[in-house]
């Protein structure tokens, strides 16, 4: 009798846990609508210490990630990163400047990385060239020599009509990154044995261009700080000099 009671108790506990878990999963995967512009302006303004004047757009990356380019009252072009987390929309990070950067939704998966920017329109930037780059290198050991070809792939984004944006990396870039990752992972024999290789790695850079196609220094876009409100993985995208291109 006692045994039965115990089993019943255990079973109901398990069932309750499963229901709670399922409910949590359901709510976690079905975000509520993104807050109104007023509410988002208020929250970002508080975190930014500068009043937000205008939200330029609410860009939905997927169900749970939103990018909000904004203009603040002192004419800064910044970006807010939002994520649906534990049943509410949370502001994860404020960038006061709109220089391009990567938001890595999943750290190790380049297909989840989002390129984000918000240029000051007075900067005369009419296009942004993004580059997937890796330096040419040569190295040798006693037995083997290795030559690493240079990679320089361009992806142009128009900035004349819309000076902000959030895009996924181009498909070709993702395929190259995947191949490069695979080739650098040892699987020739037991993979427990790591080896050291001094290869340079692939980077993403950007180059602002004027309407005439010339390099313009984005002086309105490179000053300012950022506020990280909770753990979020971003990495800077560095500007390059046209002389560094081939």
């Amino acid at each position, binding site marked *: 009798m006692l045994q039965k009671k115990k089993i019943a108790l255990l079973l109901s506990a398990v069932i309750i846990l499963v229901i709670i878990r399922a409910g949590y999963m359901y709510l976690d995967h079905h975000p509520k609508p993104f807050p109104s512009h007023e509410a988002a302006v208020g929250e970002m303004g508080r975190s930014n210490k500068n009043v937000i004047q205008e939200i330029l757009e609410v860009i939905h990356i997927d169900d749970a990630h939103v990018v909000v380019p904004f203009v603040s009252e002192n004419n800064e072009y910044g970006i807010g990163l939002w994520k649906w987390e534990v049943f509410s929309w949370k502001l994860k990070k404020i960038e006061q400047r709109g220089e391009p950067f990567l938001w890595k939704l999943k750290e190790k998966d380049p297909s989840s990385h989002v390129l984000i920017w918000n240029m000051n329109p007075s900067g005369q930037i009419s296009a942004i060239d993004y580059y997937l780059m890796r330096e040419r290198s040569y190295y040798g050991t006693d037995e*083997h020599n290795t030559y690493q070809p*240079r990679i320089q792939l361009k992806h142009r984004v128009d900035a004349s009509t819309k000076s902000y944006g959030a895009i996924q990396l181009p498909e070709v870039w993702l395929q190259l990154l995947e*191949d490069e990752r695979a*080739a650098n992972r040892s699987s020739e024999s*037991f993979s427990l044995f790591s080896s050291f290789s001094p290869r340079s790695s692939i980077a993403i850079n950007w180059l602002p261009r004027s309407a005439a196609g010339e390099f313009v220094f984005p002086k309105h876009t490179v000053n300012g700080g950022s506020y990280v409100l909770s753990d979020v993985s971003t990495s800077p995208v560095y500007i390059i000099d046209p002389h560094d291109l081939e």
Partner: protein
Amino acid sequence: MNVIIQHMPVNILSIWFNIMGWGMIILWIIIRYRKQKEKPAIWKAVLAALAGIISFSWNMMLMDMVVRIAVLPLGVWILHFFLRKHRYEIYCQYAWIGFWSNYIFLAAMLLSTMIHSVMYPINNADTYLANVEQAVLIPTHPTAPQAVLHPKQLRSLIPKLEQAEDQTYTWYSQTSTKGKPDYQMERFPYVVINTHARWGSGLQSMVYLERDGKGLLITTEKRQFYYRSEEPLVEMGGGE
């Protein structure tokens, strides 16, 4: 499903020898256990064997890889320290099996690597380019001439590829030194993606194509191979 299995970069030899290694250890434990008069609980014997694997080891390079040679049986000593003398005598033989299993795995690794190099000769282009049905050419440098890859054409030329002497330093200096005719002209301005190595080899590589369409540079984590073909591997100047 079949496609996925075919293209999984798994090293079947490595997996097979690992399983064999574990099988031998389990067998060894069972034989010891049967012979023993005063038997401990079997799970405790297994635990003792697992503890025995812990060892202070010495890393050395052998056949192009780092191997670990177990030297000091730390796991055995730990058991010796914590168990009373009588109980230690019951368990110590399992701990020693654990310690020697380091050598079983070492032997398994060396054997699988040797067989691997026979089954999948790494200086043979066909090992890396066993399947090029879905191969796609990506120009990766602005100086890449117009070219189109036809998988059938590439497929038919792979057996005729000859390994050639690489000139890594020359390639580097000619394209990186101001004033040289090839300055800022990448010698390998394409990458061929979606190629697959022979099934079961676990090999993965990055495949670069030379500017004249006749050379392939295959890079793995450890090594690089350079092959030349008499005929172009892709249709140069094709497309538009």
